[in-house]
């Protein structure tokens, strides 16, 4: 019985692969001569065979779909946060774009009232802005929600938003503009649609950025 206790320890070490060659030889030698230990060792090995032969248990088919259904959804917030962390430049661009669109919208829909950039000597008749004959506008001119009639001279750029360029009450197309009675020495912009307005806003913004 005493030998058994000692060698049982060796048997377990053997089963765990913890015996060196010398110890293994000692165990083998003892097992050959000791019936009690031999029986013990045999039972242990048989037990392991039994354990490994236990029935196969099949998993319920619905397990994976149940798991997926029960995953927390608040994880989505984390998802966005992660995305933002992983893409700082794109995030900055996205925020910028959202703010930009916002300001474009508000500047577009602010009012439908006639707006004229502040210049002296302009005449306003109803919705029409007139640059009278003999008058020279020294800078740029912006007309929003109204028409423009040029009889005098404009030194800078002209932008008409949501309006037309008129000649004595008649519409004038942009090609013949240079041949109009009045004179525009700068660039002429005619903005009539929302997307053009966005483009115009952006263009100015970037001009602003780059001139800085």
């Amino acid at each position, binding site marked *: 019985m005493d030998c058994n206790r000692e060698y049982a320890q060796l048997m*377990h070490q053997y*089963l*765990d692969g913890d015996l060196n060659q010398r110890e293994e030889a000692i165990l083998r030698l003892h097992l050959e001569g000791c019936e009690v230990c031999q029986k013990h060792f045999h039972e242990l090995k048989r037990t392991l065979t039994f*354990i490994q032969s236990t029935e196969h*248990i099949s998993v319920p088919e619905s397990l*994976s779909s149940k798991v*997926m259904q029960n995953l927390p959804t608040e*994880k989505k917030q*984390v998802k966005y946060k992660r995305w933002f962390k992983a893409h700082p430049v794109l995030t900055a661009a996205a925020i910028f774009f959202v703010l930009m669109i916002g300001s474009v919208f508000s500047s577009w829909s602010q009012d439908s009232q006639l707006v004229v950039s502040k210049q002296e000597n302009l005449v306003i008749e109803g919705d029409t802005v007139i640059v009278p004959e003999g008058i020279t506008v020294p800078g740029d001119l912006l007309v929003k929600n109204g028409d423009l009639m040029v009889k005098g001279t404009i030194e800078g750029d002209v932008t008409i938003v949501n309006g037309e360029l008129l000649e004595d009450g008649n519409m004038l197309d942009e090609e013949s503009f240079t041949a109009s009675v009045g004179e525009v020495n700068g660039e002429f912009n005619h903005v009539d649609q929302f997307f053009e307005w966005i483009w115009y806003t952006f263009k100015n913004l970037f001009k602003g950025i780059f001139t800085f």
Partner: protein
Amino acid sequence: MDEMIREKIKQVKKGDQSSFEDIVIYFQNRIYQHCYRMLGNAHEAEDVAQEAFIRAYTNIDSFDNRRKFSTWLYRIATNLTIDRIRKRKPDYFLDAEMKGTDGLDMYTRLPSQDRSPGEEVEGLELQRFIHQEIAELPPKYRSIIMLRYLEEFSLKEISDILNIPLGTVKTRIHRGREALRKKLRHV
């Protein structure tokens, strides 16, 4: 295969839920069987296996990619099964442990009443009998025996899964084997 799992985990960490489904499908058999063997019934096993996957998902950020995912997942599942067993302990007489005996002696002292030694038990019935005997081991021995012989983890991996020293794993596996030997010697 490890590489595939590693890649999927990266995707899950980035927020891709669908990649997690592949992980569940890949591990569900093993995890479910583990839970089943630990708990001894299908209903609880499904419950706990499900819970284990959900925990793994919600804690995926705390998983260190350099470690083995299966070890981490088994640890979650094993802890959950042990919690479950603890909760039902009052009316689960077999899990009672006697002080200083590490819980084993009480088991081996229990006679296997319903069958006479040497009785022929074959095929499925034998398997059920063995399963039953394993199921009656105290959880701390049962988990190690199962992880070693049914799920084929190394002792070092088992020490990682259960978060106990390697020496303790060895002591427990020795005792677990002895307990089962005594239960199964007459089969």
